[in-house]
Each structure stands twice: as structure tokens, then as C-alpha cells.
């Protein structure tokens, strides 16, 4: 018999090895998230998927469920926490959506739109982050990096190249690449690498394909991120969305 936990009052079935977020998505129940990607081991850094699990506020992407566990996600308090987290990310980097090639395909922007974020709400930190355009086929705009580590995980686990890593600590934490020069062009990175496809924001982008799809016809222009994430969720055999 399948075990279930309660998400906002309704039962969600889960299987061993799934986390609360994974089970919820597989059951067509959405919890906002940003650093989680169905193809990678959950990581739990963005904290957007925070929910009350058995009375404790934790990241649902890394928390294993238990039968009968009470999970509350769609509460006013948690919506406010998530809005604040998205605002923090907007204030931390330099995000200019109207001129960004990723606009409409960007998960940060889509989360902001879904959660009703209209301003950064905090003083912008305006960090000084030079762009790396040294690679012939791709470029990194560090201004837009949200430190989700998906590229790090993809390059380590899928591409097997270890191109990316994080350096520094606290607010000085930043993405680096595996070359003495710290330039992408001096690494083994290729534009076909999963590490680029997986970037949820406009930090790692291919060259020469800018604005091939016009703004207005892009992924999150069609349907909100909450619906897209459910389409993308892997489901146990026999269950369809």
C-alpha cells in the first residue's frame, strides 16, 4: 500500500527515496523552487521550497517524507518568506530583465512573476561582476548568477568535466571555472554541455543565438512556472500528470 503525507490538507503519495518536494511534484502538487532540478540530487540552497513540515520550517527538496506527516506550503507566512527570498536574489545580483536574453525563459523572473514580486524591496547591492566572453561558443554573465550550483553539479555529474566550482564565502561567494586564468575559454567546456542547458537564469548562455525566439513567445510567456514545473516532474511508472 502506498504511503501518503498531507500537503495543505490533501494526501500526497510517496515512494522510498523521494523527498517531500519530489513526491509533491510527481502528484501534480506544486511547491515553488529554484535550485532544484528533477535530474539532479536536491541541494537545498535557495530555500524557496521552504514549507512547514511537521511543524518545522525546512526545505522540502531535501526533506524525506513520513507517512501521515503534515506539510503546509500555501500559507500567507510562507508566501511572504518566498517573496522575500526572490527579492533578495534580485537585490544581490544585477538583474535587468528587459534587456536579458533569458527573459521569458528565466526561472528567477518566472518565480517573481508567480509570487507577485514587483520590486526588489531591498537596497540593491550592485556588485561589480565582469562578464566572461572568452569562450568561442558561450559566455557567462556573472551578474545574473543566483549561485544555485546546477552548473557545478551538471559539470561534475553529467559532463564529467568539473568546469565549475564555487569560491569565497558569504556575500563574496561566486562562481569560478577550472582554469588557471579563471576564463571559460581556457576550460574544457563545450556549448553542448549539460552545465549550460541547466542554468535556470541568464548566467551561462550560448553565443550568436540571442533573441531567436521573440520575447512574448517564450517558455514562461506561455504558461507560468508553476504549471511548467509539473509538466517536467518525473513520475513513477503508471502515473501520468
Amino acid at each position: 500500500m502506498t504511503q501518503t503525507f498531507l500537503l495543505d490538507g490533501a494526501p500526497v503519495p510517496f515512494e522510498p527515496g523521494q523527498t517531500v518536494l519530489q513526491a509533491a511534484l510527481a502528484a501534480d502538487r506544486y511547491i515553488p523552487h529554484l535550485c532544484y532540478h528533477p535530474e539532479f540530487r536536491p541541494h537545498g540552497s535557495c530555500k524557496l521550497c521552504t514549507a512547514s513540515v511537521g511543524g518545522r520550517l525546512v526545505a522540502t527538496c531535501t526533506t524525506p517524507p513520513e507517512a501521515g506527516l503534515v506539510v503546509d506550503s500555501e500559507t500567507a507566512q510562507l508566501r511572504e518568506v518566498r517573496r522575500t527570498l526572490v527579492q533578495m536574489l534580485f537585490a544581490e545580483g544585477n538583474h535587468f530583465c528587459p534587456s536579458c536574453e533569458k527573459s521569458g525563459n528565466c526561472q528567477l523572473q518566472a518565480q517573481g512573476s508567480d509570487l507577485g514580486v514587483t520590486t526588489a524591496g531591498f537596497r540593491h547591492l550592485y556588485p561589480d561582476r565582469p562578464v566572461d566572453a572568452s569562450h568561442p561558443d558561450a559566455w557567462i554573465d556573472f551578474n545574473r548568477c543566483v549561485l544555485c550550483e546546477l552548473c557545478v553539479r551538471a559539470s561534475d555529474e553529467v559532463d564529467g568535466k568539473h568546469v565549475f566550482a564555487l569560491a569565497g564565502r558569504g556575500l563574496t561567494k561566486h562562481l569560478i571555472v577550472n582554469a588557471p586564468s579563471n576564463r571559460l575559454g581556457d576550460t574544457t567546456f563545450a556549448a553542448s554541455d549539460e552545465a549550460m542547458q541547466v542554468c535556470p537564469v541568464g548566467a551561462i548562455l550560448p553565443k550568436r543565438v540571442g533573441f531567436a525566439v521573440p520575447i512574448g513567445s517564450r517558455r514562461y510567456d506561455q504558461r507560468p512556472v508553476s504549471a511548467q514545473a509539473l509538466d517536467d516532474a518525473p513520475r513513477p511508472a503508471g502515473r501520468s500528470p
Partner: protein
Amino acid sequence: MDASSLSPVLDPILARWGRTPDRLLQVLREAQDATGWLSPELLAATARSLGLPLAHVRGVASFYSFLALEPAGEYRVLLSDGVTDRMDGSLELGERLCRRLWAEPDHTAGDGLVSVRRTSCTGLCDQGPAALVNGIAIPRLDGRVVDAIADLILARRPLDTWPVDLFSIPTNVRREDVLLRHGLSPGVAIAAALARNGAAPAGMIAELRASGLRGRGGAGYPTGNKWASCEAAPGESRYIVCNADEGEPGTFKDRVLLAREADLVFEGMTLAGHAVGATRGLLYLRGEYRYLLDSLEATLARRRAAGLLGATAGGGPAFDVEIHVGAGAYICGEETALLESLEGKRGIPRNRPPYPVTHGYLGRPTVVDNVETLCAAALIAVHGAVAWRRLGTTQSSGTKLLSVAGDCTRRGVYEFPFGVTVREVLEAAGADDPIAVQVGGPSGTLIDCAEFERHLSFEDLPTGGAFTVFGRGRDLFEVARQHVHFFAHESCGFCTPCRVGTSMLASVMDKIHDGHGSRHELAELDRLTSVLGNGAHCGLGHTAMNPVRDTITRFAPSYERRLASADFAPAFDLDAALAPARRMTGRDDPASHLGEGS
């Protein structure tokens, strides 16, 4: 330095640590000791030798404050920047030192001689202000000592020829109870624990459970339960980790235990190993306590020679201890960050569950205990649970070591039974006119004089050991502001709420300090409290708001008198923004200022 000239430096270090990636931090630390800084060539050579990507090595090296990725000078002076250091005048002394050395703070001098920087509290609060020179601690700075240091540096005297009294660090033990006057010879506690283990069905773990001993680091988890879970966890090998990364500002009692009671600490580790079936122990020593390393290693050598460590440790199963030294990261006091650091990685707290008792060091079942907890366990092995329970309160058995510092005449370490009132400690320490006490450091609780009858215990005021006294005239807003900056500096940066939130918090407090605060900023503090408390990944983020929370409720006037009356005042100050232009044109006349009438 080219790659070939690095081999003589790097090879012996790699040989000593055994070329495995989990020793990366120790290799980097020793390589820096040998060469002064971690050059790109050195990082590349280390990466090659350990089979790691260069980016990974740079990622680790850049995480730790004490590792220098740029030339940091022949003499690297780090001034302890704890709240008590500042109360004792550290900022003025730092300026004096820089003047004498012709040094600019936070920059390495052009001739490569010296750099002067600030660092988080170094755990010498009872004898501050303190500094670290090339990693070695110097207490009790005053004008005379600062001038002497400057002269020695300018004369390029090697550090090991400096007058020894500069480095003398007394333990300042002011009150002893059962732990500090244990009087046990090495080996006695191990033998007692072995006897208990032999006497089925009880055993050491049962005795520990009966004693009610709870972790002394602050969280207060029952030690017996922790050992039992580790013992029961499946795994081929187990580990005992002693958390000697005492980083909470205001705390220094573990330093005193390591300096005075090293045998008892290792005794506790050994009998813990016997109890849970671990053959290896690791002691993670705070980088600031590097000066204790030689004496700790000597104690280990003596214990090996005496048969108290090794193949039959104290007559029991095999056990030995290895010491790792940290490199300036408060977060590594968090037990899972400490495990990551022991594995040579960036000190990022892990996701839990699983917990260290099942998946700890190298993924194996691991007990992580505080220095004082392990000493207490050794005592319980000898005297038993009943004797231990006789001291303290129902839920907080035994004694607690307190690090008393700040505005009092008798600073130092006090051992009191749990349940002692704040007032009793204040009286023992000679605090004449205290207005507030910070119990448990900035991540603990700050109380005012209306609460001095409260008890130090897990039931009332839990504490990891810091007890910092603030006397009349101290500005508690400034104390909170300094601590908020501390948390922003020490945030590991893993999760959004803490990485961004602690820095936002610091900038809001700065704005209030600068006189641009309004009700808007108080609301902002509320918002940040909620997101840090509700969203952060670990205890650092959860408690980073505590200094603000406690001072704003108890010392509201220190905030209110700084607030501009409006609902909102911009942080941007046009007149201040013109300062560089005034400096460049050499002007400071009234017409060069914006203001009333201009």
C-alpha cells in the same frame, strides 16, 4: 616561485598527510605556513598532487579567512575584533600599530613586509585586546606591547626570537568545581569506563544516559543517546570527533581545557571510542588556537608512549587521535560543517537527516562532541552518574564552564553547577555596575538587569559558555551592530536567506547608525528576522538576528535616539557623496558643502 622549486616545500607536507583529497585543508594550511601565502603555482601543484580540479582547490582555499590567495606580507598581523577587544580599546591600538608600521589597514605593504587586518574574536576575551601574528596568539595588547611588536617587525626579527612573555597566555581559572579539580591521573578514566563496559548489562553508555549529561557546545543534545545511536548505526568503521572549534565570540573555556586538561580531553575521546566501537578520533582545533598544537601533539605522543593510545589504548581496544587545524571559519563550529572541513572541503553545513551519528566523517557513523562534554564523560566514567546528577538541576546535570569577560574585575573561567543565577556569577566576577549580560555569545541571549535572577540551565538560560558583561555606559546598539557584521562576515553563503539576509541586516543597522534610520528600517529588521528565522539552512542564520532581537526589546532607547523622525529617510547622502570631490580639490570650505542655506 616556479613549480620545481615548490617540491621541497610541498612534498614533505604531502608525505606527512598522505596524498588524499580529504587532507586538502591541512596541506594548504601547512603550505601557507611554509611559504607565507598560497600562490597560483602552489594551488596548481597541490591540485595535481591530490588529483583534484584546480577550481575545487581554489574554492576551498578561498573559503577560509586565514588562507591568503595574495601575498600577505612576511608578518601577517590579525587583530582580534571581538566586542570585548573593542571595549578594551582594540581599534585605537590597531591605528597605533598601523601608524608605527606605516601600514594601511587591510593592505599588504608595498615592500611585502607586513599586513594588518582584523579577524573575528580569537577567544582571548579575558586578556584582550589580542592579535595573531603569523597565526600565533599575543594577548593583552596595550600601547607598550603594540610598539614592541612594531619595532620587532620593522627590525625583521624572526617570530621565534621574539620575547616569550609576549606570547604568555595564563589560563585564568577563577572557580574550580568537580571538573577543573578532577585530580585524575592519565588512564584512570579509560580503565573505569572499560570496567563499566565489562559489567554487563550496564556499560559506559548506560551510565552516561543515567547521568543526564547534555552537550556542552550549547545545543544540549543528550550525550548518552548520541553515543548509543552511533554505536547502533551500521558501518564498518566509526569515528569520534572532538569539536574544538570554539568560535562563538566571548567563549574561551575550551582553550583553557585544551591548555590545562588535554589528557582529560583525550581520555574522554578514547573512552568514547571504546564505548561506540571507534578506533579513530579526530580533534578539530580552532585555527586561532594554533599555538596549542605543539603541546597537544606532545600530549598525544606521551599518551602513545604510555600505551594510552595505540593498538591497546589504555588496556582496551585500539584507538588513536589525529589533530586537524581550522583556518578561520566560525561556521565550522557547526558539527556538519566541521565534518566537511575535516574532509578537506568548504565548511558548508550538510542537509540533515541523515545525522552524523549514522552518516558523519567520510559518511561513517560519527560522534561529534564538544571538548567540555568529553571531559565530563571522563569524569562520569570514574565517579558515576549518581555523583554527576547531584550537581546542577533536573534537566541540566553537572557543572558548566563559563567564559566570563567584559566589564568585570575578575575575568576568566568559572566552573559553576548548572542552575547558578546570573547575579551569582556577576558577583563572583566582580561586576560592579552591569546593565546587561550576553549569555552564550551573540547567538545566545542578551539579558538586562531585570533578569539577573535567571538561572543558567537548559530549562532557563542555555549557554555554550560565553558570559559577557556590559557595564553602565556601554552602547548596546553598537554591540548588536558589531555582532550583525560578525554574522555577515562568517555566513558560509550557502543559502539565500543567510547569505543575503545577514548582509542586509548589517546594512540596515549601519543606516540606523549613520542617522538615516526611520520606522521603515525597524520594519525591515522585522522582515529580515522572519526570513532568517524561518528560512535559513543552519543555526548561524537562525540565530544571526538574536543580538538585534534582544537589544531592540530590552534597550529600545539605544535605537530610538538614532532614528530620524520620518517614516523613511534615504541612505544616500549627497553631501557625503561629494567628499571625494572635496578631497581631490583640497577644499573643505562652507561653499563646498551642501546643507542648510546652500
